């Protein structure tokens, strides 16, 4: 079956430092990968949508300078949170979809705590 592994599951970083999270698709080709953030008491906000061989599209309020994303092949994507501050804490999810698929498969998320 299709699975998405995301790591690390939890991370703590000091304010002003950066952390990288990774997402790996198994059992299908992740043509597109979307990164979401679920802040405390909030729903999932789309950060950016990445499709292999296309430009990464960032949503309003999110920038490449703050959340650089790499999607080099059909099984892997990574995102870095640069210069993290308190407002960046939350659960970061990657959701991957194959070509022609309607379902998005989610990883278990990376919970970021900023201290």
């Amino acid at each position: 079956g299709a699975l998405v592994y995301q790591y690390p599951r939890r991370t703590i970083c000091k304010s002003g430092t950066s952390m990288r999270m990774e997402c790996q698709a198994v059992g299908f080709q992740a043509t597109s990968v979307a990164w979401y953030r679920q802040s405390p008491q909030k729903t999932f906000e789309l950060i950016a949508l990445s499709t292999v061989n296309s430009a990464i599209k960032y949503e309003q309020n999110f920038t490449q300078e703050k959340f650089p994303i790499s999607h080099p092949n059909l099984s892997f994507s990574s995102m870095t949170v640069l210069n993290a501050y308190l407002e960046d804490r939350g659960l970061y999810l990657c959701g991957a979809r194959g070509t022609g698929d309607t379902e998005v498969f989610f990883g278990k998320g990376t919970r970021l705590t900023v201290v």
Partner: protein
Amino acid sequence: GDSVTQTEGLVTLTEGLPVMLNCTYQTIYSNPFLFWYVQHLNESPRLLLKSFTDNKRTEHQGFHATLHKSSSSFHLQKSSAQLSDSALYYCALSVPGTGGYKVVFGSGTRLLVSP
């Protein structure tokens, strides 16, 4: 823009009673995909139901929903709530975005089922 509205933040029920969680959506895209995801504590969202066919009931694990394009609704129902149904439920909309399909989540409804 594309949006999903879930009017109830919290629904509390006694075991055995019927469940209905509301979901309406807004999009200019004429053929959206609608989803219900369930998120249990400390887990990632898991697909519960999906549909893109107007007026067709879709069922899974005792839950069902019917996409009604005329009213832009995709309400989630179950005839008899179980304790294990307690979780966060997200209605989501998938529409074409730049570079691929993007999923837009509603704000979520927490369902609490008590004995």
